[in-house]
């Protein structure tokens, strides 16, 4: 009876469950550890597969090992732990565990079950009560550690083994004994180039971010990612070149899309040229066509030779500076001089009485356009819109504005700013019809369009520069045979022009000029100041851009005496070069490429390089050299050499097909 009395005093339905709570908690922790271990095991398995794929070069770039391994394992642990957390550990579970481990012979589980049995609650159910007392006594004396001692489960052991295996998979293939010296060298090259590319990409990204060039920024980020991968991963040259090719293709696609967005088929006329055209037409009207010399700059020759200036620069004559000053490039840089040379131009109320003065805003817009400043254009259009809408324009001024807007529209034709041109034209038409409100609206639209199109152009140009940087990096890495072959500077465009002036001048000049352009773009410098006496040999003196090849080899002119300033581009200071500068005109490089033949001349034109000819890329020089070998006798060998190059990784895989196609197309039996 004592036991029953004890039962009545101590046992409650919850007593047994409460006594088993510590054991249930321990069981929950164990289950969590076990399930998480299973998940981790899965994650490790995935990681090992990823490592193997990485070694086999079949791991997608989007899944870098540095991310795949931790993410897989963490994800596995989480996925494994979730069921353990969600599954309920009942007192019955704890009871069964304790019974099994401690040999309690179903005392606890039976008691827990009997708690819910109606038969057990009767006064006559002596055996139920005795059983409960018995179970409760055992449960209270239960030591969770004894029931569930820590034991490494097979899952935990497997996780440990899996980690070891993963480490082996990561480390062993990269041990020196498994890597040939050539591969090591390649990787060192790739790593070094990767570091450089990362720095370069960061610079481009900062620039792009500062100038709101989203696509360029994105591509720069991709470049940076590639650089980081190259620097961090054990990547050989072949893999790196493949990735270069992929990124290049990606950039080309984006650039093409940007160009299309900016106005397909709208020609390649630059904003500067459009500004010049507008300024001329305004001046022609404002100055009554009496300018014997350029009223804007004071220079006699204007844009008739735009883009070709410098060809006539005669380095070494001492006057070359003046001649060089004829360059339209200098016009662009001498906008302030416009007002000096023609003071009345700055004040529509002065001079040229009796003649209609150009609208001040349009005049300023022209000046801005000549600087390549599309934002200036948009600002002036907005001001004019405001003046038009406010009714501040007199009928004469309104008529003049209409005419000036028409000129602006005409000047913008052929530029990659079709929307601006369209709205300018619409504004002119509206003014003509006397609809000031509509005209103002159109002017604002034109201003908005100018901003937008300028932005897109900048983005496209930025993309192009990024692509060039990437290409340069690719070339450097492809040509490097040891890490020392790769220059340490990621800003290799610094310093003076290295144009040699010999027949190789074009190539070297291109490279240097491109580097300078890169530098200017990166540094925000490069506003040209080389007006006047500068023989016009400074590549990119009008700011960064792609007109790299135009002045190739000009540096050869400097030995000719006279005051030819040293060409230090780092000295160039000024506003950020505009992307619509003619030097960014990609077609110019193709249309106007100069090649200097021979060695620096003697005599009168001392220091002058050999004869300069203007050729299109790929075309033979006029009256060019005669080959001593029939081309069909040579093309076979060339093709073989090309095939060899294709096979020997020097040519990026993406371009191999093109090389093959090219040689197939020029082999004699192919119909050529």
């Amino acid at each position, binding site marked *: *009876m004592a*036991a*029953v009395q004890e039962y009545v005093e101590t046992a409650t339905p919850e007593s047994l469950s409460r006594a088993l709570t510590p054991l249930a908690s321990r*069981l929950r922790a*164990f*289950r969590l550890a*076990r399930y998480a271990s299973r998940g981790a095991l899965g994650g490790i398995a995935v990681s090992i597969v990823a490592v193997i794929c990485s070694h086999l070069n079949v791991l997608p770039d989007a899944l870098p090992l540095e991310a795949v391994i931790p993410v897989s394992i963490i994800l596995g642990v989480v996925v494994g732990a979730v069921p353990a957390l969600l599954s309920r550990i009942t007192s019955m*579970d704890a009871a*069964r*565990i304790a019974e*099994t481990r401690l040999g309690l*012979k*179903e*005392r606890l*589980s*039976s*008691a827990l*079950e*009997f708690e819910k*049995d109606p*038969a*057990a609650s009767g006064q*006559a159910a*002596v*055996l*139920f009560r*005795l*059983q409960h007392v*018995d*179970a409760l006594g055992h449960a209270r004396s239960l030591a969770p550690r004894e029931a569930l001692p820590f034991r490494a489960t097979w899952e935990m052991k497997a996780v440990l083994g899996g980690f070891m295996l993963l480490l082996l998979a990561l480390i062993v293939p990269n041990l020196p004994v498994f890597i040939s010296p050539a591969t090591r060298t390649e990787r060192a090259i790739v790593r070094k180039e990767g570091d450089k590319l990362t720095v370069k990409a960061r610079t481009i990204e900062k620039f792009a971010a500062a100038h709101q060039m989203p696509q360029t920024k994105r591509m720069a980020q991709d470049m940076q990612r590639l650089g980081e991968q190259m620097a961090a991963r054990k990547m050989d040259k072949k893999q790196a070149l493949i990735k270069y090719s992929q990124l290049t293709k990606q950039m080309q696609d984006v650039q093409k899309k940007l160009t299309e967005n900016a106005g397909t088929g709208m020609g390649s006329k630059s904003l500067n040229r459009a500004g010049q055209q507008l300024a001329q037409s305004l001046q022609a009207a404002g100055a009554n066509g009496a300018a014997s010399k350029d009223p804007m700059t004071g220079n006699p020759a204007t844009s008739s030779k735009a883009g070709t200036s410098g060809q006539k620069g005669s380095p070494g004559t001492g006057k070359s500076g003046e001649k060089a000053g004829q360059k339209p490039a200098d016009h662009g840089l001498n906008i302030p001089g416009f007002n000096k040379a023609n003071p009345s131009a700055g004040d529509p109320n002065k001079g040229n009485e009796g003649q209609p003065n150009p609208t001040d805003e349009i005049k300023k817009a022209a000046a801005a356009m000549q600087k390549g400043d599309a934002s200036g254009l948009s600002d002036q259009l907005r001001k004019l819109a405001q003046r038009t809408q406010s009714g501040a324009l007199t009928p004469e001024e309104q008529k003049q504005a209409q005419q000036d807007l028409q000129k602006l529209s005409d000047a913008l034709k052929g530029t990659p700013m079709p929307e601006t041109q369209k709205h300018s034209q619409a504004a002119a038409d509206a003014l003509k019809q006397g609809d000031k409100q509509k005209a103002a609206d159109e002017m604002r639209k034109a201003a908005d369009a100018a901003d937008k199109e300028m932005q897109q152009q900048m983005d496209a140009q930025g993309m192009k520069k990024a692509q060039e940087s990437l290409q340069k990096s690719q070339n450097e890495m492809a040509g490097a045979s040891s890490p020392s072959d790769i220059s340490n500077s990621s800003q290799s465009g610094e310093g003076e022009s290295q144009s040699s002036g010999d027949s190789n001048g074009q190539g070297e000049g291109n490279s240097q000029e491109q580097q300078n352009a890169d530098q200017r773009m990166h540094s925000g410098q490069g506003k040209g100041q080389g007006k006047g006496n500068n023989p016009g040999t400074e590549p990119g003196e009008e700011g960064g851009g792609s007109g790299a090849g135009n002045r190739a080899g000009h540096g050869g002119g400097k030995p000719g005496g006279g005051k030819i300033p040293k060409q230090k581009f780092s000295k160039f200071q000024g506003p950020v070069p505009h992307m619509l500068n003619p030097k960014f005109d990609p077609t110019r490089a193709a249309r106007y490429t100069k090649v200097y033949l021979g060695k620096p001349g003697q005599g009168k034109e001392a220091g002058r390089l050999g004869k300069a000819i203007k050729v299109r890329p790929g075309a033979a020089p006029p009256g060019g050299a005669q080959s001593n070998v029939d081309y069909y006798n040579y093309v076979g060998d060339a093709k073989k050499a090309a095939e060899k190059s294709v096979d020997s990784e020097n040519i990026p895989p993406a371009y191999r097909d093109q090389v093959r196609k090219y040689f197939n197309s020029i082999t004699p039996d192919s119909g050529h």
Partner: protein
Amino acid sequence: MDETSVRAFRDDFARVRDEVGKVIVGNADIVDGVLICLLSEGHALLEGVPGLGKTLLVRTLSQVLDLNFNRIQFTPDLMPADITGTNILMEDEVTGRKIFQFQPGPVFANIVLADEINRATPKTQSAMLEAMQEHSVTVAGKQYRLAEPFFVLATQNPIEMEGTYPLPEAQLDRFLFKLIVPAPSLSELSIIVDRTTGTATPKINKVLTGEQVMAMRQVAREVPISSLVRDFAVKLILATHPRSETATDMVNRFVRFGSSPRGAQALVRGAKIRALLDGRYNVAIDDISAVAPAVLRHRVLLNFDGEAEGIGTDAIVRDIITRLSAQVSAALV
């Protein structure tokens, strides 16, 4: 029933065992098995070669318990009426008329020893069926109840011996346990020799009355069993059936017929006694496993392959228990 009777169960059981142990040397499991059968309201079949003390055990038990005891020596010419009793023509002393009067057979006792039961013909063996199952005898259309507690202890010689008739399956199924009496060990045999060849005769005391036995039976019936343990017993029985869902390979290969539901009943009843003897008030899987061989060895019928291979039913039962226990453990974590 109160707590006192529950706690007295083990003591009473121990006293009976001790008293029997005065005569029977060794064979503690056999003694326990017989007592479990008695308290589980079942009957026991003892199998062993002659001379192992089977009959002595039963007789001793009857002496320990204050109960009626009859012994039936089964022979090939034994008739059913010789067991159950029969109506015989009697003259009424008062009226002088001739009347049929039922003369109870030896089965009318609390403890019946059916010695060498497999020496009788199946017809005679079957005479025990009703008595064992229904605890009654029907003669000439009239049913006679047997006094409680009614407990049949049968002994049989191994079937392979000459002049035996294998018990029919229905008859076998009526026995709760089939206990195999082993030959005594060296030390046990020495003691047996000493005890039986000397002058000293152990004095057997009656330690339990029929009422006490009935009370103990009641206590045993009330031992609770959890669903987990009950399911284990059920699965164990089902696993003895070839081609059943839980049948082991061994069962599928060597077993012809599995156990009847009486096997499950026997498992639980026997396990309840074992739980009480172990000081517990709940049935455990271990209890089921412990009584399973005795419960199933005469209920699982081997096929030709099993017989030919010499596979014992005990091995098959152990195989099933091992498999089921593993399943129960695997479901824990």
